[in-house]
């Protein structure tokens, strides 16, 4: 069975990393990230309704992010920065639901505790970063730079935290797979 945590990790990497060269679109397009997320959620071992709801949310975000990327790439800028920031908020909301799903599916108490701690810190950092970024647009140039730097730093720490969490998740998943094989 494929590892869902790798897909979740790939998903967030694609969304978080933006590399644009020479006027070309982002080589890590966000909509690929949401597709990875949708697939990762599909692989998670859970039959709760929340799983299907979260996966569908990921699919909706795939479409939305594609529209926003296209808008930016073609230069029409109908949505502009508003679209980008709205997507950022929707990502935070999506991650909240993803964590609810992850919190429900683990029998291993230690890993469940790790999931909970990651959820607490990740959500705090992302929401604080988003709120600070919101205020930054109305500040003077100097202060705006400081505020945006703080916001990006908070989101970077959240991203690194999630990467480490996915690594632990992968290890847990592989050990579970091995113990299932051995029991046969």
């Amino acid at each position, binding site marked *: 069975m494929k590892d869902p945590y790798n897909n979740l990790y790939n998903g967030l990497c694609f969304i978080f990393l933006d590399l644009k060269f020479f006027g070309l679109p982002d080589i890590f397009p966000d909509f690929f990230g949401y597709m990875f997320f949708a697939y990762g959620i599909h692989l998670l071992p859970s039959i709760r309704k929340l799983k299907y709801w979260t996966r569908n949310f990921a699919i909706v975000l795939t479409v939305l992010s594609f529209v926003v990327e296209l808008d930016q790439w073609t230069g029409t800028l109908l949505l502009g920065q*508003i679209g980008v920031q709205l997507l950022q*908020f929707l990502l935070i909301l999506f991650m*909240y639901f993803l964590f609810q799903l992850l*919190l429900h599916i683990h029998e291993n108490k230690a890993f469940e505790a790790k999931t909970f701690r990651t*959820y607490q810190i990740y959500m705090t950092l992302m929401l604080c970063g*988003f*709120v600070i970024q919101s*205020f930054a647009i109305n500040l003077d140039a100097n202060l705006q730079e400081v505020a945006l730097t703080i916001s990006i730093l908070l989101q970077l720490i959240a991203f690194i935290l999630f990467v480490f969490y996915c690594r632990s998740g992968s290890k847990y998943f592989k050990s579970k797979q091995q113990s299932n094989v051995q029991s046969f």
Partner: protein
Amino acid sequence: MEDRELFDTLKNRPDIEPEQAFSSSLRRELENNPKLKTKKVTVAPLLTIPMTIAIFVFLWMITTGQTLEIRSTASPIISQEKTMVFTGGLFVLLSLVLFIIFVFSKGYTKGKLVFITFALSLCVWVGNLVYANW
């Protein structure tokens, strides 16, 4: 089997059943205890209410272009008004950040507080956008 026999004797200890008087009095106490059914005032609503009011006042200020009138001998001039708006914005930002830290450090995973956190964050973003384009 021997274990079972040992525990069977303990299961049948003579005083195992509660006294009828005790059971009845506790049942009556539970029936007639309205004080316990009222929720205690917790810190969370005390934080949420002023937080929500502050954000709505902020939204109202920037959408109507009004500032709060303060009675003073000197009327506020433009730079003072800007300082006031800046201070007000900073206050809202810090309060909201503290509120977010409070909600998630307490470990809430669902419920009204989490909903309010997301709602306030969105309101703040919308408010700042409106103010920027004013």
